C-alpha cells in the first residue's frame, strides 16, 4: 500500500470504515452535514457503525424481533413517529408502547386497536414504564390521547382524576383533567384542559415527572393513571382512546 516514500494523504484516502468510525464520534447533525460533503463521506455516513452509536444501548432488548433496513432508518423512525414495541403482535394492549429517542424523543403507550369504550361505568387506565427506557435527567410530561365524544352536548362534562408518579416516591400530586371542554365552566375550572391536535386526536395533560440520574440497579417505574372522579355520574360511552404519550419538556 505505502511506497518507499511517505506520500501526501488526505482524509479521503482513509478507508471508508475508518471515516465511519470518525463520524460515529460526532453527532447526528454532524453526520447529516458530512453526508453532503462528498460521495465517499456520504457512503461512510450511511454505515450502521455510525448510527448504532446514536441509539440507546438497551435497544436490542426492547426491539427484539423488529427488523429495520439500517440503523439509520431505525434512528430516524425513533426520532419521528416512534416504533411500536413487540412489532404490534403482542396480545396485551397495555404491554405495548411506542419507543422514541431522547431529545426529540417522545415515548407513547398505545393500544393496538383503538378501543371504543362502551358501557364502562368506572373508567380507569393505568400504564407503567421502566425509567431506563427514558432519557436521564429529563422532565417528561404525560398526555392522554383520545377522541372526545360529542363536544359535551349530550353528556355532562367528562372529568377524570389524573396522576403521574415515580413508583415508590412519597410525594404525588393528583390533579383533575377535563376530557371534554365545556366553555361555560372553563373560567373557574382549575384542572387540565384538553387540546385538539393537528393529527385529529385530542390530548390532555396527566402530570409530569423528572427522571434524574437513571440508576440501573434501582429499576424504577413511572406510573401514569387516569380514573373517573365521580364529579358527575358519567358513562364513558363513545370515548376513543389512542394511548398515553410521555414527551420531554425543554426545561
Amino acid at each position: 500500500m505505502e511506497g518507499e516514500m511517505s506520500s501526501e494523504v488526505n482524509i479521503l484516502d482513509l478507508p471508508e470504515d475508518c471515516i465511519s468510525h470518525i463520524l460515529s464520534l460526532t453527532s447526528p447533525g454532524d453526520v447529516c452535514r458530512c453526508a453532503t460533503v462528498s460521495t465517499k463521506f456520504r457512503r461512510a455516513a450511511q454505515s450502521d457503525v455510525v448510527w448504532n452509536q446514536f441509539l440507546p444501548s438497551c435497544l436490542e432488548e426492547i426491539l427484539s424481533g423488529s427488523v429495520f433496513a439500517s440503523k439509520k432508518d431505525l434512528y430516524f423512525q425513533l426520532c419521528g413517529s416512534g416504533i411500536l414495541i413487540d412489532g404490534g403482535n403482542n396480545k396485551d394492549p397495555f404491554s405495548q408502547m411506542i419507543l422514541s429517542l431522547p431529545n426529540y424523543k417522545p415515548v407513547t403507550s398505545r393500544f393496538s386497536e383503538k378501543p371504543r369504550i362502551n358501557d364502562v361505568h368506572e373508567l380507569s387506565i393505568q400504564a407503567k414504564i421502566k425509567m431506563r427506557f427514558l432519557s436521564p435527567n429529563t422532565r417528561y410530561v404525560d398526555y392522554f390521547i383520545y377522541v372526545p365524544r360529542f363536544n359535551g352536548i349530550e353528556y355532562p362534562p367528562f372529568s377524570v382524576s389524573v396522576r403521574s408518579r415515580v413508583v415508590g416516591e412519597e410525594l404525588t400530586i393528583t390533579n383533575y383533567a377535563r376530557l371534554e371542554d365545556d366553555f361555560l365552566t372553563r373560567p373557574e375550572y382549575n384542572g387540565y384542559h384538553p387540546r385538539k391536535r393537528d393529527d385529529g386526536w385530542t390530548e390532555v395533560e396527566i402530570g409530569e415527572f423528572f427522571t434524574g440520574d437513571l440508576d440501573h440497579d434501582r429499576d424504577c417505574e413511572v406510573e401514569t393513571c387516569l380514573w373517573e372522579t365521580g364529579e358527575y355520574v358519567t358513562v364513558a360511552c363513545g370515548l376513543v382512546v389512542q394511548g398515553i404519550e410521555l414527551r420531554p419538556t425543554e426545561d
Partner: protein
Amino acid sequence: MSSSSTTTTTTRLLMLKASDGVTFEVEEAVATKLGAINNMVEEEGSEDLICLPNVNGKFLGMVLEWCKKHANNNTNSDKGNDEVNKWWDKEFVMDLDQNTLYHLLMAADYLSGTELVDLLTEKVASMIRGKKVEEIRETFKIKSDFLPGQEEEIRKKNSWAFE
C-alpha cells in the same frame, strides 16, 4: 539505575522492520500493545524479526513512541497514570498536521492499536463537530464530487441539520 539493567535482561526484544527497511528494536511489552504484533508473537512464537510492509518507518517510529509512553506509564500501577496518559495523549495529537494524522491512523488501524486508533479518530472527529458543510470542505480540502443537484437533494432530506 541498577534496577533498570536487571529488568532489561528479562525483557525480550523484538525487531520491527518498516516498509522502507528502517528497523526498530523494541521491548516485547511495548510492541504487544499493538494487537497485530501481539498476535504474531503469540502465533509465531520465537520469531524475533517482524516485517511490516504496510507501514513507513517514520510513522512506525511515532506509533512505537506512543506505545512506549503508554507501556511505561502503565507499569507503575499508580492511579495518577490515567491523568498522565491523557495529558501525554493530548500533547501527542495537538500539533499533528493532517498528513501525519492520517498516516498514523492508517498505521495504527493496520497494527490493531485500538487505543491509538481511538485517540486519532477522536482528533479527526473534533475537527468536524459543529462545522458547516463548507467549513468541513475547507478544513479537509475536499471538493464536492456530487452530480449537479444531487447535493441539494441530500440536504433537503435532512434540512434540520442545515438550519
